[in-house]
């Protein structure tokens, strides 16, 4: 039986002015129809770090993540502010297609296009107006190297991406996202459909990628959060309960519900 935890007591860290932030939300609310799925999310994400969003199923962490690049636009109502480079991008007149090029996303299940490996990466690039073959080939190589997939696929770039293994497909999806040269990379449980060996590879890739990108990753795997993230936010039933450096959160959680979750009492 899940205990009734009070939502009044939360412990959400804020950052000093000298910490460079990639993204910040203010009083973010998400409604699915009448269902209030996310309450007052006030989170700031430091640049070039991995932030993990953890919590049980239905805690709102994926909902929150998908709001950050406006992927929830058609299915939910999102109010509040999302600050990105001094602009509130949660406004109706913001160009969402432009936003999504700066804030990339990788999904739970690998979803490569039914195209060749090369086409998977350059299709969206070409749509942005890059036509030069040399530039495109360069981006293919760079992004595949960035996602630690280059050595495995460099000889089969024109083969179908669907022939790759699940782990390779997921790294291709990461490569496809970073080929757009985004600032922020959002990952929604990227390893939940992968085996442990593929998971290790994706995690190593992410640790490498944080040098260039700000990464926000949703995971239901606490070990994974502990392994790769610097900051960690704990979500519970649509509320952000605690947000702290990962080491602190796992060793000395400030509130009861976090303590119970990280010690495995529920979730």
């Amino acid at each position: 039986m899940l205990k009734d935890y009070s939502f009044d007591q939360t412990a959400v860290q804020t950052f000093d002015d000298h910490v460079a932030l990639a993204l910040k939300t203010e009083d973010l609310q998400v409604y699915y129809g009448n269902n209030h799925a996310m309450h007052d999310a006030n989170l700031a994400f430091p640049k070039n770090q991995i932030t993990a969003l953890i919590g049980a199923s239905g805690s709102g962490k994926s909902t929150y993540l998908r709001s950050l690049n406006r992927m929830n636009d058609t299915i939910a109502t999102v109010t509040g502010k999302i600050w990105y480079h001094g602009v509130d991008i949660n406004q109706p007149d913001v160009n969402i297609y432009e936003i999504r090029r700066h804030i990339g996303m990788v999904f739970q299940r690998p979803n490569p296009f039914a195209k060749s490996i090369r086409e998977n990466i350059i299709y969206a690039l070409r749509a942005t107006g890059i036509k030069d073959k040399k530039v495109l080939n360069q981006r293919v190589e760079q992004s595949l190297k960035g996602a630690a997939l280059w050595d495995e696929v460099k000889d089969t770039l024109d083969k179908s991406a669907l022939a790759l293994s699940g782990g390779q497909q997921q790294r291709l999806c990461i490569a496809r996202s970073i080929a757009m040269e985004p600032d922020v990379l959002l990952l929604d449980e990227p390893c939940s459909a992968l085996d442990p060996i593929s998971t290790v590879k994706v995690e190593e890739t992410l640790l490498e990628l944080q040098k260039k990108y700000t990464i926000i990753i949703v995971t239901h795997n606490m070990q994974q959060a502990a392994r790769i993230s610097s900051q960690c936010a704990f979500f519970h039933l649509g509320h952000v309960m605690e947000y702290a450096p990962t080491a602190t959160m796992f060793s000395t959680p400030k509130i009861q519900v976090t303590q119970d979750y990280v010690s495995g009492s529920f979730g």
Partner: protein
Amino acid sequence: MNAKRKDLLATIIIDVIVATVVGILVFLLAYILISGLPHVSWSFLTGSADSFSGAGGIGVQLFNSFYLLILTMLISIPISLGAGIYLAEYAKDNWRTRLIRSAIEVLSSLPSVVVGLFGFLLFVVKFKIGFSVISGAIALTFFNLPLLTRNIEESLSAVSRSQREAGLSLGLSKWKTEIGIILPVALPGIVTGVVLSAGRVFGEAAALIYTAGQSAPVTNFADWNPMDAASPLNPLRPAETLAVHIWKVNTEGLASNAAQLSAAASAVLIIAVLLFNLFARVLGNYLYRRVTASK
């Protein structure tokens, strides 16, 4: 009865049903081919029919059938593609789209004779186009559209939502995602729909009697300028198709060998449909391989 026996019984029943269906199909095909093929000759395939007795070859009719089919497809594929994409991707679920959907269903259950008479009154008489290939093609488009639209909508809807999310998350517009990513994946399903509707169009007679007409004026196959009256490509000339020809020979034919003529024409019709299906499949597979880079 235990589970194993039930399973065995069910399997037997299913086998019998399948065998019956396949048997009927094979019997029909064999009957038509065996009774028709002996009367098919090169001069029959290329010669022109005597418009009064119905005797002679079916060259012009065969050409008319293909020409009409291609013209119909040229008109109906773009329209149904647009409608299918709209219904699958853009239409919100409200009373208006429900109305559109029911209208499509009604249109698909319209008897072809009614479509033919409508085409006759509107295009042939009112617009004064006369019995012509183009009148026939537009009439056929009418009952081709609902099938194709439905088929395209369903093929598109069957593509996983995660593909759409992938496209959108890369900053692609909805339209670009739809055309560049979803459509190629849905292509095999769409080709199947086109093949099925092509078979219907090819075999259609009732709607064409009143629109494309029952006469096949001798055409000059050396003249490929669509503007010339005698050119086979002229869309404004009357064009009796193979299916209409079979109907005419059987009902009005004065030739002594009318039965053999119609049997031979039927065999040619069936073979033409089979060949067209084969061609469409090969083309569809080729396109699919090109766009998806799969083997």
